[in-house]
């Protein structure tokens, strides 16, 4: 057995890092041929994206690190880039080389990160992207000089036009393993010697070398209260803490204030390094972007365009997804029927058709909304408008402690919480992102609408209020949406003051230049997000659907129950059969097919009469089947749970049947309509506009004859559905985005708790006002 793998099969790993808006993703896609493996780093919410270099036969692996302005890190999430670059992660091998993407038009600020990366101790190649845009802006860069000043290889490219990509690929394939780390130094001697001294002291204090390597010691000194420092103190205890404080004091005495040292030294060094390398036009020319900004963030026009754009996006996810969703719904229905025909009736058939196929259908149904929203988000992000939208909305959201970045996810929540939660990736601040994820499901999504329509239509009088200006029904519908928003504001305020308290409420955001969107990348992102949803959330949703299916399917009706329902409906069926038999026995009734055809020509009414009588038998039989279905579900485990929760839901004005409907709706709230249909013997094939179902609800009685439903009960149900976390898909996607079970459980608990309390208050107040 050989002890070492042959050198030829050793993978060469290159990490890709850069500021946001530098085209880093475009470069990654071009180098990997749009083939990436996407996952999560363990224990954090950062996406892990790797891919093989196109044409390298899997020998070169690219690691796409999250876009960032700086390596400074105050959380485990922000620390990912540093951990990968220093080889501290167990789920990612240390890269052999770093590719730093910089925007040629914005070299000064982009080189800040690049100079940080140079200190990691790995060979670096600088990818000077978008040189075409820089040239168009009158910026000239002497690449050769820049190479000498930074001390690394610099490759100019225009990734969006695929220019220069081959050169990068060639470099990675052939000669990158011969590159050496750069020895560029941006800090004064006072600092570098202090860092070396601290390194020795920390090793003495027992800090393991991997946490106290020179690069991490520098980060520790530069970032008071940062992750590098926290880990060193965790490992080295009070001795380490004292050593750091001592060295910081020495530095401060020498005029090196830790807080301002890094930015001052790096930007100072960059200014000098770029002297004579970059030629800029004397006066800043008003660019295309500036002219566009003058309109797009104009007081009047900017706001108007923003509102129109948001309406368009909202309309498209809310309404335009409808036909596609119907198509999917119909498709899975037909598939269920076709597959159902292959099996004999029984538990297996029911599990496959009603459990699995319906469950998968319940997952795929969300795809249109996700794809449409992410098409818009990818598009707006790609062309640079996203930052403007955040700029326009920042003040409004700052009032609840969030930033403008939360606006689009929140708005999307009115259509569907799943894409809304996925859209929070554009929020850079972790506290803001988590808060947005946890409150977005409170927005009244499109699945709540059928519930509102059913109960408003059945129980809210069609009066008008405010002197005929608004209908009462519309006002109630609107207030359901308002309930969600008001509660979301309250919850966001509380979360931002407790779990997600930001150390600094500041919000600094780049407003990148507008660019023409790259359609291929836009569609790729949209597709990636859709597939991710299917893969990550799909399994959980199907599992939950199967459980609820089993709860309603078992136990099977007993012979006694079947006999009882049969007996109840036998007279009607017998009567219908007798009527047909009597008609058939008449003399005029044709006895042969020829006579029947003759009769249908001479006297069609006669034949219609006979057909109607036949239909009467079918209707009576169908009534019996529906009643049996209803009797079965009322007797099922779910029905028993309904009885069990009755004392809990009674204060909300609900009977046990509403309780079981609410329980059945936990995987997906919209099933309440069809579940009520089954429970109230109208069959499951009803929708919220069904007059039959509305009548059944109005006529539902308790044993003492009093009606089950009234306006107060309807309001209580609607408020409950407005606030409750009845969506397995949302909880599954929260699990995926927060990479922890804690937050979906928290969301479920707080929403359900609030829903109960709010429904209780609603019912108790409404019942007193009405009577």
């Amino acid at each position, binding site marked *: 057995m050989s002890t070492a793998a042959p050198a030829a099969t050793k993978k060469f790993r290159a990490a890709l890092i850069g500021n946001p808006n530098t085209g880093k993703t475009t470069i990654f896609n071009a180098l990997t041929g749009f083939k990436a493996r996407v996952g999560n780093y363990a224990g954090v919410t950062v996406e892990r994206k790797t891919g093989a270099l196109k044409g390298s036969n899997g020998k070169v692996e690219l690691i796409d690190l999250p876009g960032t*302005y*700086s390596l*400074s890190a*105050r959380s485990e999430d922000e620390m990912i880039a540093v951990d990968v670059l220093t080889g501290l992660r167990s789920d990612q091998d240390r890269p052999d080389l770093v590719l730093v993407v910089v925007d040629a*038009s*914005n*070299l*000064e*600020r982009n080189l*800040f990160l690049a100079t940080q990366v140079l200190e990691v101790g790995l060979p670096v190649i600088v990818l000077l992207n978008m040189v075409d845009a820089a040239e168009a802006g009158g910026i000239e860069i002497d690449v050769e000089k820049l190479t000498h000043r930074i001390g690394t290889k610099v490759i100019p490219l225009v990734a969006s036009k695929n220019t220069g990509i081959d050169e990068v690929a060639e470099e990675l394939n052939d000669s990158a393993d011969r590159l050496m780390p750069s020895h560029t130094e941006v800090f004064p001697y006072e600092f570098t010697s202090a860092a070396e001294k601290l390194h020795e002291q920390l090793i003495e204090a027992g800090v393991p070398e991997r946490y106290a390597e020179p690069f991490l010691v520098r980060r520790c000194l530069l*970032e*008071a*209260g940062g992750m590098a420092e926290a880990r060193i103190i965790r490992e080295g205890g009070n001795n380490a803490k004292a050593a750091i404080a001592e060295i910081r004091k020495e530095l401060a005495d020498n005029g090196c204030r830790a*807080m*301002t040292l*890094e*930015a*001052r030294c790096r*930007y100072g060094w960059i200014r000098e390094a770029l002297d004579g390398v970059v030629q*800029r036009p004397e006066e*800043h020319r008003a660019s295309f*972007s*500036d002219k566009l*900004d*003058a309109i797009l*963030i*104009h*007081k*009047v026009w*900017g*706001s108007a365009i923003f509102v129109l754009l948001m309406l368009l996006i909202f309309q498209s996810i809310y309404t335009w997804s409808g036909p596609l969703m119907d198509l999917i719904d119909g498709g899975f229905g037909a598939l269920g029927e076709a597959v159902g025909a292959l099996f004999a009736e029984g538990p297996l058939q029911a599990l496959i058709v009603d459990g699995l196929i319906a469950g998968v259908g319940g997952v795929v149904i969300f795809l249109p909304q996700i794809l449409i929203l992410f098409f818009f988000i990818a598009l707006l992000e790609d062309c640079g408008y996203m*930052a403007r939208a*955040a*700029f*326009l909305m*920042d*003040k*409004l959201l*700052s009032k609840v402690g969030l930033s403008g970045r939360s606006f689009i996810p929140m708005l999307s929540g009115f259509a569907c919480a799943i894409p809304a939660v996925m859209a929070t990736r554009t929020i850079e601040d972790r506290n803001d992102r988590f808060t947005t994820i946890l409150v977005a499901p409170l927005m009244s999504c499109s699945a709540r609408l059928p519930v509102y329509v059913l109960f408003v239509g059945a129980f809210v009088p069609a009066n008008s209020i405010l002197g005929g200006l608004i209908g009462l029904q519309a006002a109630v519908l609107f207030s359901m949406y308002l309930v969600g928003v008001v509660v979301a504001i309250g919850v966001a305020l509380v979360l931002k003051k407790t779990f997600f308290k930001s*150390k*600094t*409420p*500041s*919000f*600094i*955001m*780049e*407003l*990148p*230049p507008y660019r023409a969107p790259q359609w291929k990348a836009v569609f790729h992102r949209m597709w990636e997000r859709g597939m991710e949803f299917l893969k990550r959330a799909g399994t959980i949703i199907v599992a939950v659907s199967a459980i609820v299916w089993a709860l309603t399917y078992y136990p099977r009706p007993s012979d006694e129950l079947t006999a009882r329902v049969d007996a109840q409906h036998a007279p009607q069926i017998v009567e219908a059969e007798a009527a047909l038999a009597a008609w058939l026995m008449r003399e005029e009734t044709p006895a042969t097919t020829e006579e029947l055809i003759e009769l249908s020509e001479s006297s069609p009414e006669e034949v219609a009469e006979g057909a109607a009588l036949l239909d009467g038998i079918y209707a009576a039989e169908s009534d019996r089947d529906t009643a049996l279905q209803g009797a079965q579900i009322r007797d099922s485990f779910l029905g028993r749970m309904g009885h069990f929760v009755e004392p809990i839901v009674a204060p909300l004005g609900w009977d046990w049947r509403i309780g079981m409907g609410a329980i059945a709706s936990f995987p997906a709230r919209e099933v309440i309509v069809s579940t009520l249909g089954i429970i109230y013997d109208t069959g499951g094939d009803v929708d919220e506009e069904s007059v039959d179902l509305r009548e059944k609800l109005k006529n539902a009685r308790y044993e003492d004859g009093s009606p089950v439903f009234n306006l107060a009960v309807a309001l209580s149900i609607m408020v409950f559905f407005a606030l409750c976390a009845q969506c397995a898909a949302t909880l599954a996607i929260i699990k995926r985005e927060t990479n922890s079970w804690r937050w979906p459980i928290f969301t479920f608990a707080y929403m359900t708790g609030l829903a109960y309390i709010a429904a209780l208050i609603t019912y108790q107040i409404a019942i007193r006002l009405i009577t």
Partner: protein
Amino acid sequence: MRTLADLKPGTSAEIVDLHGDDLAVQRIMEMGLTEGERVSVLRYAPTGDPIELRVRGYNLSIRRADASNIEISKD
């Protein structure tokens, strides 16, 4: 103290000093707003906050609360 929050759209000034919370100052400086650097205010958001700035050849948005911690020259 004259701060960046006092600067009118279309005018510029030099950063003299940065005040406030260490962490916030560090984040602001990382974005290139360092002492001695010239900053111009391009426009305010329709709601008056945040502010769009231009520094080191690129545009960024900053809230008034942060801008009022950035001391600027008199001119």
